[in-house]
């Protein structure tokens, strides 16, 4: 599918923020050596979530930072996917975004009717059809064949990060705000862009993987 053109985005007051989100996503290189980023970016994300869902996490979340490559990614993915109970994405973030959009009366169809022309355009975020409007993919599919045995885990992680990008944009559109301040997904996307990958294990513990491919074992 033709990519969404961030420069052509036009969605009212949120335009510069949505453009910045898409530009950051486009500049993000996945699973390359990590880069410096402000150290408390995950804490900023957790605090922004707490502002909307006060009991989402424990009063203090222990955040551990570790360096690692494909082996570490695979192991952390297996750990999160194998756990039952707390679910950061499905249990916290998605319900939070749903409630936020609902409270503001925002829907994809209303957005498409307000901001998109009848003819498809490169900057469209949605494809309207019947009484629905469907999100377009916000970035290209990435092939992680080079990840060896971690290919599936990498695709899984990247897929959920794409959901975070979608949630970030939906949040901003529903807010109708020019500034990204307070958008709970903005710090998260900045972490991804720096090659730092969070895994929230439960309500009180999180691990940030600083990606270092050279630390991979045999693969």
């Amino acid at each position, binding site marked *: 599918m033709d990519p969404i053109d961030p420069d052509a985005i036009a969605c009212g007051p949120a335009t510069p923020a949505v453009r910045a989100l898409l530009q950051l996503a486009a500049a993000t290189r996945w699973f390359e050596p990590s880069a410096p980023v402000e150290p408390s970016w995950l804490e900023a994300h957790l605090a922004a979530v707490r502002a909307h869902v006060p009991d989402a996490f424990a009063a203090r979340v222990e955040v551990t930072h570790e360096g690692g490559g494909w082996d570490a990614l695979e192991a952390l993915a297996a750990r999160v996917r194998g756990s039952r109970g707390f679910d950061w994405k499905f249990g916290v973030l998605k319900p939070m975004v749903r409630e936020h959009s609902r409270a503001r009366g925002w829907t994809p169809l209303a957005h498409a009717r307000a901001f998109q022309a009848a003819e498809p355009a490169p900057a469209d975020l949605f494809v309207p059809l019947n009484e629905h409007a469907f999100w377009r993919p916000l970035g290209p599919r990435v092939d992680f064949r080079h990840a060896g045995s971690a290919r599936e885990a990498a695709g899984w992680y990247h*897929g959920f990060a794409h959901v975070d990008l979608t949630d970030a944009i939906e949040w901003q559109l529903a807010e109708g705000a020019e500034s990204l301040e307070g958008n709970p997904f903005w710090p998260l996307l900045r972490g991804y862009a720096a090659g730092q990958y969070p895994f929230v294990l439960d309500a009180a513990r999180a691990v940030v993987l600083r990606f270092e491919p050279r630390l991979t074992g045999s693969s």
Partner: protein
Amino acid sequence: MLAATRRRIEGTREDFAEALRALTDAVASTIPHGRVYAIERSPRIVLGSLVSGVGIAEAADGVVVVRGSERLGRLWP
């Protein structure tokens, strides 16, 4: 998700709008704030999962399940 969609179209006349309704309903009732993506919009619209790349599309012989350019079968049971 395809199984849940198929359960919702059982006994109905094959129709893309019906498939669309069933798919969106299946996603909404299974995944919190789940989304159906327009994986492709040209030359034909493919609606489905971004993670798996599997979607449904309208074809000359009905509604089909596809992954990229590969046809995986018909949607109607």
